Structure formats: structure tokens, C-alpha cells
């Protein structure tokens, strides 16, 4: 589904070129759950941003469903964001002026889903995550775990094929983290392709495959053994 070919990402300063990613090659198939691990500064987030079309690689090619996605026009990029992928962030990045319900609903509005159809979709998710009672609260009124749950709900409400999670548990207690990871695992079992970046060895094990990055290079790419 996603294919990275010889991806480089570097920054040029006056006398030297600093590589963040160097010669990254890998493929993600539909239904996979990939955990990307590595120390700080190893390029995990940059790689995730490149896959999420938020950042441009300096060299190399990226294919989504065998279609090259490089130098896309704004409009096409938005199409991908609206229909193909969802994002989860370490800092949740919920919109503070919106209630839980509105936060989850917003991607659907942007997607152009009609009001009548939006309601059941959001209601279903709220129900699924046991948050019906909290739908009119604002993000600040929720615990971290609950906020991230809203983040997950917002990411998947548009039924994307790919879920990108940048350290989704980084700001959470371990018990809350586990809850989020269970949710992600469940989603994966229902068929969602997930790529997550994490520091946490235990949470990395929730995936089916672990890629270890170091200094911008892939050191290890192994399936998880149960």
C-alpha cells in the first residue's frame, strides 16, 4: 500500500549536509500494524511526516497504492488527508474551542458529509469508546487518556485506510496508554493499517512488525514474535 524508495531527508548548512533520513526503503501492506522505534533524533517523526504528506523528502520516491505522491498540489494533498489517512498526535492537538462531539465531527464537515449522515457516524464512535456522557465537554475538562481517545475518534471517523500515530501514548500514564493501545489493536484487527512511532518497547509489541531507526538508517525490520 505504501512504498518508500530511497528516501533521503537532509538539511544543508554552510559547509555540511546533515542527514535526518538516509536511503530509507520499506513497504507497508494493507492491514499491517507497524511500530517505528528508535532514540531521539533518529528520524522517526520525520519519516512519519513524510508518509503523512506533511513534509517533503529531499530525495527518493513515495508511492501510495502504486501512485507516486511527490510535489502534490494542495488540493490533491487535502484529498488524501480527508479520505485516506488519519493522524494521532502525542499532544492530542484537539481544538480547544470545540466540544468532544464537535471535534470528532469536524473532519466529516470538511469532507462534505451531510449533517444527517454525520450524526450517526459520530454517535457510533462515541458509543464505541464509551464517551456518550462526555460529548458536550471541552477537551480541557477531560483526562489525558480521554483526550487521546477523542483524538483517535477524530482520526478514524472519516474511515481512513491508514492511521498515523506519532507517539500516541507519550503524554499518558501507562494504564491510559494501554487503553489507547488496545483501541489501536482493535482497529487493526478490524482491518485498519496503522503506523505508529513510539519510544515504549512494550507498546511497540502491540504491532505486528517493528522497524528500528538509528541516525536516519533502518537498523532492523522484524515481525513481532508472540
Amino acid at each position: 500500500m505504501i512504498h518508500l524508495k530511497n528516501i533521503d531527508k537532509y538539511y544543508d548548512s554552510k559547509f555540511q549536509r546533515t542527514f535526518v533520513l538516509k536511503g530509507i526503503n520499506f513497504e507497508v501492506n494493507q492491514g499491517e500494524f507497524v511500530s517505528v522505534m528508535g532514540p531521539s533524533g533518529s528520524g522517526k517523526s520525520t519519516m512519519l511526516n513524510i508518509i503523512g504528506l506533511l513534509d517533503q523528502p529531499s530525495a527518493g520516491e513515495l508511492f501510495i497504492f502504486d501512485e507516486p505522491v511527490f510535489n502534490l498540489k494542495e488540493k490533491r494533498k487535502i484529498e488524501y488527508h480527508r479520505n485516506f489517512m488519519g493522524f494521532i498526535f502525542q499532544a492530542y492537538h484537539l481544538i480547544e474551542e470545540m466540544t468532544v462531539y464537535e471535534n470528532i465531527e469536524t473532519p466529516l464537515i470538511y469532507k462534505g458529509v451531510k449533517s444527517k449522515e454525520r450524526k450517526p457516524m459520530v454517535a457510533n464512535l462515541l458509543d464505541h469508546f464509551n464517551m456518550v456522557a462526555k460529548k458536550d465537554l471541552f477537551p480541557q475538562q477531560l483526562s489525558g487518556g480521554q483526550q487521546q481517545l477523542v483524538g483517535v475518534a477524530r482520526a478514524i471517523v472519516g474511515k481512513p485506510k491508514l492511521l498515523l500515530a506519532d507517539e500516541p501514548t507519550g503524554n499518558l500514564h501507562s494504564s491510559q496508554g494501554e487503553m489507547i493501545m488496545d483501541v489501536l489493536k482493535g482497529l487493526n484487527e478490524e482491518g485498519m493499517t496503522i503506523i505508529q512511532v513510539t519510544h515504549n518497547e512494550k507498546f511497540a509489541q502491540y504491532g505486528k512488525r517493528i522497524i528500528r531507526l538509528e541516525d536516519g538508517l533502518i537498523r532492523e525490520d522484524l515481525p513481532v514474535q508472540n
Partner: protein
Amino acid sequence: MRNTFKLIIRSLVRKPMTTTINLLGLSVSLALVLILSAYSFSEFSTDKFHQNHENIFIIQPGKGWLYTPAILKPVIDNSLEGVEKLIRVRDKWKAPVYQFGQNNPLESDLIFADSDFFEVFDYKALEGDLKTALSEPMSLVISEKLARRLFGEKPALGKTVKLDDKHLLTVSAVFKDQALNSIFSFNSITNIETVKKVQPNPSDFTHWNYNNYQTFLQLNNHVNKTEIAKNIVKLFPESNRERLSQLKLVELSKIYFANRDQHISYLKFGNKQNVIYLALVAMLVLIVALVNFINITASHWHDKIKQTGVMKVIGAWRPTIIVQMLLETFLLFTFALFLGYCFVFLSSTYLARKTEIVFSPELFMSPGFLLISISLVTLLSILCGIVPALRIAYSATLINLKKKVTLKTQKSFGKGIMVSLQFVVTIVLILFTILVQKQVDYGNNNIGINQESIIGVPLTKQMVGKKDVLKESLLAKANVEEVVFTQYYPGKMNSGWSSTFQINGEEIRAVFRTFSADAGFFDIMGLELTEGRFYHDHLETDKYKVVVNHQFLKEFGITEPIGFVLPQYRRPDYEIVGVVKDFHFKSVNEPIAPLVIRNDDIQSSVALVRLKTENFKALKITYENIRGLTAELSPSFPVNVTFFDQAVEAMYQSEIKFRRAFTMFSICAIVISCMGILAMSLFATRQRIKEIGIRKVNGAKVYEILAMLNKDFIKWVVIAFVIACPIAYYAMNKWLENFAYKTTLSWWIFALAGVLALGIALLTVSFQSYKAAIRNPVEALRYE
């Protein structure tokens, strides 16, 4: 769409402090702009409500001179093509006193005009028919206001009132009080023929040298007004033409601003410069508020950047984001406009009473005005919002998420410029406020005559014959020291006479102001003699001796004044016996004119009473005593007894009102910019919370942190001061040029303004800085 509104309102409510500062500043400044535009509009559209206003002109025979002879009318009517109507108007020399039945007599005003006055000028009738109301002599048309004073709520039509306890006039119509923006201001008007009975003067209608009337012309559409003016000059007798080289016709709507030094009781004139100055201040207030707005929203959008990033990631389109941001600005502006309208309606009566700013509230409700104000607000909100909106919307999503978008105004340099700009405005306004006050004080302290403990008693018809009785009974009262009779009183017009004499073989026609006074006048007023002597009023030989002021000598080049003879037309000649130092017998803002003070008891119209005490209570009692006495002596004519210094102050009503309006506006501007600076310091400290924490952990003391935070603001004030001084210096000099006698621009004005600005800045900023500086560093560091 509904969601967008909800979001905008939520985000505004989440930041009550900045929203309040923004809204308050914007709405106050918009209110000022609204008020001033309504005021300027009404000032600049004076008399445009008369249907024929474009064809109506006044004859102005010379610069600052509007008097023409009555005989001009028959001559023009007979021989000049193109003049459709000609209206002569004059006011009554002394204020009229009306009495209805046995009611109390009351003082008002009265003008005489040709019978077709109401065919040229548009007035609305409440009773009677204005078109025919003036056709008979001794018929009287009165204003709604006067009708109410005379007859209460009863109909006025057909009633007879007694004028000056002598003449009977019949009310033939009542007109609705005229629009505020008209040069005319009178409460009663009668046919011009009435003059012959009320103020008989055989020469008034027959002699070319009796210039007692204003002449209004209604021309037909096709004639050229300069042509007409030339032809009018030709109609004068040969000997008069020489003085009429400047004669021109002034359009009705232009009379208002063209004659600010004129004193004609039924015409009121405006001061264009004051209107412009006030409008300028209103613009400055708006600029200050807009700068606040830009600064505050820029800091506000700092928080918005992340949110925008999130919205882009979940699929928002750029135009959506831009529209939402602009909508937020627009909503705030619209709300501010609404609040501004509220302020206008709340303050309009106060403004009308305390300042000269008068406008009709209906103007605000007119569709044109509403449309203009809404489009203005739209334009302003787009101007203020478009740059940050575009920058945020078009920056890369990832950069949004990491909050790295820099807006121009967020760099400390750019912010510095904005804050400096505000301080420039503040400093200039502080300077001007001080200057205006200083000029007023200067005027009050340099009139050159005594003003304290003097009471003026105008002599009514019934009192003129009883002057001796009055003097005696006044002197018998406690606290009364001296009583003198004179023609002079502050705010009262002085007669203008002329005399022709030879100086160095050259014939000079001297035009001068003159009034009569008892010899005691010089002492009461404290006038200083520079040459010769004062005349004595008990000496028959001194009857035609006069005292002149210094300006008289200067203007006509008289070097040896004592014994100089001023020949008079059909009167004995006058001889100068003394010269006094110049004093302001008219407003201090006017140049001192040549003056002759005559020993001419018959002409006296005022009794000046000097009191012995300065005790307020005693003054009050004496004042009441004098009022009682005059009411006894003059039962049919009300006597308006006043304190001399209050009469002087009344001369400066318009200056006082202008100063009040100016000060009020300046204070608004200063307060708004203070609020802006407060908000700026709030953001500045918030952005540096981490830095402050680190510095404190490393051992910085509270005062060091305070100094660090305040340093920037002080720098900006100093820069602003350097920029503001030359601008203000230039503008202040320009303003002072309006005055014949002006105060000086001393250095301390600038120093004071600088210190005040710095003080204001430090006070507002330190409040925030101190709070930031005493914060626990651990808390500050955790905050990030």
C-alpha cells in the same frame, strides 16, 4: 456557518482580558469617529436644507464686514436683472422684552426682515401661514420655544404682546425651531417696517452711509455672481465705491465658516479649524485603537497557529481557514460598531451640553450613514485581518503544528514600531492638551483689567433716567465700594466710529472702537496711564476730552497724542488728554483694536459696582440685594445682573467648549493606548516566562528581571518621544498662529509630556513585569 460563529464567540470569551481591551478600545474610538463625522457633516452642510440654498448669497462689502445700507433694496429691485429676491435683515439694537398680559416680562431676541423672508428661507410653520405672516408691519412671527415661554401650551396665533413696555405686536405665525446647522438663530422676527416705530431713525432708510442691514440675495440660475457683485458696486454713490473694491457675494452655505470674527446677534458662525482639529484627534484615536487591535490579535493568533495546523491535517481547505479568520475580525469590529453606536446615543446629550459638538441623532439612522459605517468597518477588518490570515493559512502544515510561523508584527522590532507609534500619538496629544490649557491660562492672565469683585448691572429703559437714584441706593448697600457708569461690558459689542484727520500732511480716516465711561472706570478696571491724564467727569471743560489706548497711536502713527484733536461729523470734536496701556476689551483671541474712551454720560448702558469683599457668602448676599433693588427700579424690563469675571468667561464659551472636547478626546486616546500597552506587556512577559524562570534559577534578582522586562518599553518610549517632539512642535506652532496673542512653547511642556508618557508606560508595564518577576521559577519552567 453557525458552527463558525459559535467557535469565534467561544474563542473570544476564552480570552476575556484581550477581548475586552480590543472591544472597548475599538468601540470608543469608533464612537468618536461616528460623533465627529456626524458633527463635521452637519457643520459642513450648514443651511443646505433650504431648497434654494445654491442661489442664495449674502453681500459682503468688505473683508469681515457684512453691513449694508437699507436703501440698497429699492435701487437693486429697480435696476438689476437676475436678482429674484432681496431680503434685508437686521437685529434689534437692544434685546427686546416681551410681556403677555400681566405675565412676567421676559427678554428674548428680535430681527427685522423684508416680508418675503420665509419665501427665500425654508422654515416649517406650526401655526399660521409663514408666506403671508410678515406682510403687515407690527406682525410678529415667533419660534416654538418663545411661544412656549410666552403662552405655555396655549395657541399663540392672534395674541398680542407688548414689546419693551410700549409697542403692541400681534403674533401672526409660529415656526418650528430650526435645524441646528443653520447660520440663523433667532426667536422672533417682524416686518422691516416695524423698525421705524421701534427704533426710529430718519436716515436709516434713506442714507447710503447708514450701514445697519445684512442683505441676502436670491439670484436666478443663469446669472454670474461676480457680474452681479460688480453691478451692485456701480449702484452705490460715487463717494462710497472706493471702499467697496472687495465687495463680493458669499454663498449661503459658505457664510458659516467665512466669518468667524463677526458678532451679529442673530447669525452664528463656525470655526472650521476647530472642527478639523477635533476630526484629526478622532482619527488619531482610531489609529491607536487599530494598532492595539493589530498587536493584540497578532499575539492572539500565535495561539491560533497550532489550531490551524490541526485543521489542515484533518482536511480543512485554506480558503475556509482564511474566511474564518477574517470573519472573526469582522465580527469583533461589527460588535464594536454596535457598542460605539450605544456610546454615541448615551453621550450625545452630555456632549451637546458641555461641548460644541451638536448633531442630530436622526443622521445616524439614515440608511446612507449606516451603509457607510458598515462598509468602513468591513474595510478596516479586512485591512487588519488579511495579512496574518494569509500568512497563517499559507504556511506549511508541519510548521503550523510546531508553532513556528512568524508574523511580521510578532518580531520584537515590528512590535516596537507599533508601540512607538502609539506613544507618538499619546505624547503629541499630551503635549497639545497642555498647550491648549496654557494658551487659555495665558489669555485669562493677560487681559489687562481687574475682574474680581465687580458686578455689572445693565441699565434698562426704566433705569436710564434713574441713574442717580440707582447709584445712591447701591452705595447705601453694605459692601458696595464704588459705582460707575459706562458703555463697556465684556461680551457686549462696542460701537465703531471714524474720524478723519491730517498726520504729516497726509489725510487719514481712522476707524476705531469706542465706548463711554465715567472717570471712575479707569480706577475700577485698574487701567494704567502711560501719558497725560484721565478726564474728570464733573468738569464741564472735560466733556469732550477722551482717553485712547496705545494701539490707537500705533495704528495711526500719532507721535504727540496729548492735545491731538479728533474731528467728528456733526458733533463737537474730541481732544485726547491721556493714553492708557493696551488691554483686551474684546476677546483675547482678537487683536487689540484702536480704542477711544469718551466722557459721555448719556450713552452709559451699564453700572459697574465694585464690592469691598472677596468673601463668597458676602458677595452672594450683595448680589441678591442688588438684584432686588434693580427689580424694583425696573419692573417692566428684567435686569440681568452678572459678575464681571463670569461675563469675561462667557466670552470664551466656544474656546472652553472646544478645549473640553479636545481634552476629552485626548484622554480617550491616552487611555486606549495605555490599555494597548498593558496588553503588549502581558504578551511580552508571557512569551518570556521560561527565560525569566531560567534567569531566576541562575540567580537573577527581582529588580534585575524587572529592569530587563521594562527596558524594551522604555526604549520605545524614548524613540517615540524623539519622533513626537518635532511633529508636535510644528503642529503646535501652527495652532498658535490662530491667536493674536499667544503663549510661548517652553521646553517644560515637552519635558512634562515626556515624563508623563514614561510614567504611564512604566506604571502599566511594571504591573505585569512585577507579577512575572516574583513568580516561582519552578512553576514558570514547568509551564512550558
